[in-house]
């Protein structure tokens, strides 16, 4: 699906330090509605930190993040209202261990968005069915495989009806045979026009899902291009080196 | 009567310190013996023998369920009559504290030994160590980091529990305090002083136990 020209997210000159060490050193980035942005880069380049900043999980040192035309740091804006519109899926799935699948999914929509149970339940069941977990709504997280847990985590995020979802290396902790089932769910979301920012190490997946790729290293965006261009004809030396590591 | 205030403590300090000496001596002797017997008990408790496990479980539970106060009474009032011997309060106290200390120390030792990952033992076996070599070179050096903080914390419990010996007629620091109070009626200052004395003794121990535990956590 072609991305519209409506700007959803605008990151301006973002800086983030851990102690003395700069992790993000001036990130500028625009994301349009319906666009799928994949962020690549070696570990420690700051890509996960960037996602965490967008969801307000990290305080930033300088710069601004404009979401739907308003700064998320604006005093009048409540971070948790922003978070209801920005979904996030983590590497460690982090289903709530003491709740069943369906309880995990209902918690956010019912408690923080105060939506009707029937409506959310119907949506949740529909989405669980779609990701192939229609029969597991009463299971506890410990009874699920890693791939199943991650699919539940994605459904949990989707049920909030977010305007954008952030995926932080969601397949990194999975056994290889479970990676596919999770990536397929994300690919389907892309086809439906969901706006997404994805940090991943799966190059083939990146190639097929991305509308645009940014390559980060040492806290800055080194390269920004279309997937075909990036994978077939990287402009910078650092990107070439990075891609070489994935070919054997 | 004119109140003496805190001066009562200074006036009677030698008497109080004499009682404190007795208190600490009982705790110290009990703890030293408990460490030795507790090690043996702890090793016994790691045994796979079901009967041995049951017996040691019951022994430990006996002290977890029946208060030390009651055990002191049994040792001081019942045992002498049953066996037709005479037992001093000090002897009764040390005997019970050692029996209790053995159980608790044993549980600390067992916990420490069992906390080691199985792979450590398997790695030891794979390089051809015998069971006793395994214990001396692999298990003990790693377990000791868990045992020491636990043992220190047990010794603070032991010192605090030693306060009970006054109830079976031992002349400890509390008894000395009571004697002073009988004479001077300065209960507030004397019990306040006892409170502070126990704190001054136990606090450094519990802090060092906590610090060591944190330091050796990984």
């Amino acid at each position: 699906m072609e991305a519209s020209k409506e700007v959803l997210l605008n990151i301006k000159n973002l800086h983030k330090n851990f102690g003395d060490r700069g992790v993000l050193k001036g990130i500028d980035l625009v994301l349009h509605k319906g666009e799928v942005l994949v962020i690549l880069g070696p570990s420690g380049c700051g890509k996960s930190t960037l996602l965490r900043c967008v969801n307000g999980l990290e305080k930033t040192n300088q710069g601004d993040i404009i979401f739907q035309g308003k700064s998320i740091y604006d005093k009048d804006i409540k971070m948790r209202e922003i978070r209801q519109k920005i979904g996030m899926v983590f590497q460690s799935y982090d289903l709530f261990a003491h709740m069943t699948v369906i309880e995990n999914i209902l918690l956010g929509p019912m408690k923080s968005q105060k939506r009707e149970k029937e409506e959310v339940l119907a949506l949740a069941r529909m989405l669980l069915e779609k990701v192939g977990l229609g029969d597991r709504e009463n299971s506890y997280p410990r009874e699920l495989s890693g791939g199943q847990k991650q699919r539940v985590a994605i459904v949990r995020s989707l049920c909030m009806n977010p305007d954008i979802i952030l995926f932080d290396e969601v397949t990194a902790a999975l056994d290889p045979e479970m990676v596919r089932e999770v990536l397929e769910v994300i690919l389907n979301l892309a086809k439906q026009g969901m706006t997404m920012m994805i940090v991943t190490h799966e190059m083939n997946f990146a190639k097929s899902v991305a509308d645009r790729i940014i390559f980060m290293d040492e806290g800055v965006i080194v390269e920004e291009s279309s997937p075909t261009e990036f994978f077939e004809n990287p402009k910078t030396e650092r990107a070439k080196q990075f891609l070489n590591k994935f070919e054997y | 009567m004119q109140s003496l205030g805190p001066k009562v403590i200074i006036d009677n300090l030698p008497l109080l310190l004499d009682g404190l000496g007795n208190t600490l001596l009982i705790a110290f002797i009990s703890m030293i013996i408990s460490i030795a017997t507790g090690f043996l008990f702890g090793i016994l408790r790691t045994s796979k023998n079901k009967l041995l496990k049951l017996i040691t479980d019951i022994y430990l539970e006996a002290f977890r369920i029946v208060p030390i106060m009651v055990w002191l009474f049994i040792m001081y009032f019942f045992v002498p009559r049953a066996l037709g011997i005479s037992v001093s309060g000090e002897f009764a106290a040390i005997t019970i504290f050692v029996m209790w200390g053995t159980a608790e120390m044993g549980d600390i030792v067992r916990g420490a030994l069992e906390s080691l990952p199985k792979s450590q033992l398997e790695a030891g076996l794979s390089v051809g160590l015998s069971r006793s070599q395994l214990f001396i070179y692999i298990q003990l050096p790693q377990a000791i980091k868990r045992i020491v903080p636990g043992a220190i914390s047990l010794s603070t419990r032991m010192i605090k529990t030693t306060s009970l010996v006054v109830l079976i007629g031992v002349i400890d620091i509390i008894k000395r305090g009571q004697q002073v109070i009988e004479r001077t009626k300065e209960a507030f200052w004397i019990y306040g002083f006892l409170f502070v004395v126990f704190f001054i003794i136990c606090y450094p121990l519990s802090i060092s136990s906590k610090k060591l535990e944190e330091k050796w956590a990984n």
Partner: protein
Amino acid sequence: MNFEFIQKVIPMYVKAAYVTLYVGFLGIMLAVIIGLICCFISYFRVKGLNRIIKIYIELSRNTPLLVQIFFLYFGLPQLGLKLSGTVCGVIGLGFLGGSYFSESFRSGLEAVSKSQIETGLSIGLNRWQLIRYVILPQAFSISIPQIAANFIFLLKETSILAAIAIPELVFTAKTLIGLYYKTNEALLLLTAGYLVLILPFSIIFRILERRVRHAEFGS
């Protein structure tokens, strides 16, 4: 062993057991309340109060209950504050147990992983909802073994209240020994009394612990 005597004094022990439970429960309730307050203050690092709580916890954990209650029962009247034995006993248990419960609750709270909290934030829960639906349920099940241990510990500590003449089990046994010299019978009933009181709790807690652990985290 004189069974006639045992039969005669059993009602006294039943009454004493009731006193033990009554004072014990009140003390434990006070300890839980103190523990909750202290735990929240130290978990959220409330300025000023946090320091006081730390001092209290160290004082409470590093002094014997016997000295604490002697101070309350014999020491305070000198300042004109006269409290009954039962009140002293309950306050003493609360003062002692408060620090134990506080530490147990706090270790449970701190064991809830940062990523579970972040996930809660990322679905837009507010601070209170996060505590109510994510942190507390998990912290509680982590703390259960310690809470149970504290409960039994404090119930046993009531035995020390005999020293300020609260007519609980130990005091009753001591009185009977003094009155009738029936040491064997008195001590047998005393030991049996604690077995009957504490063993059921010990067993119930063990089952509960296993069940909660299993329900929430498996294995």
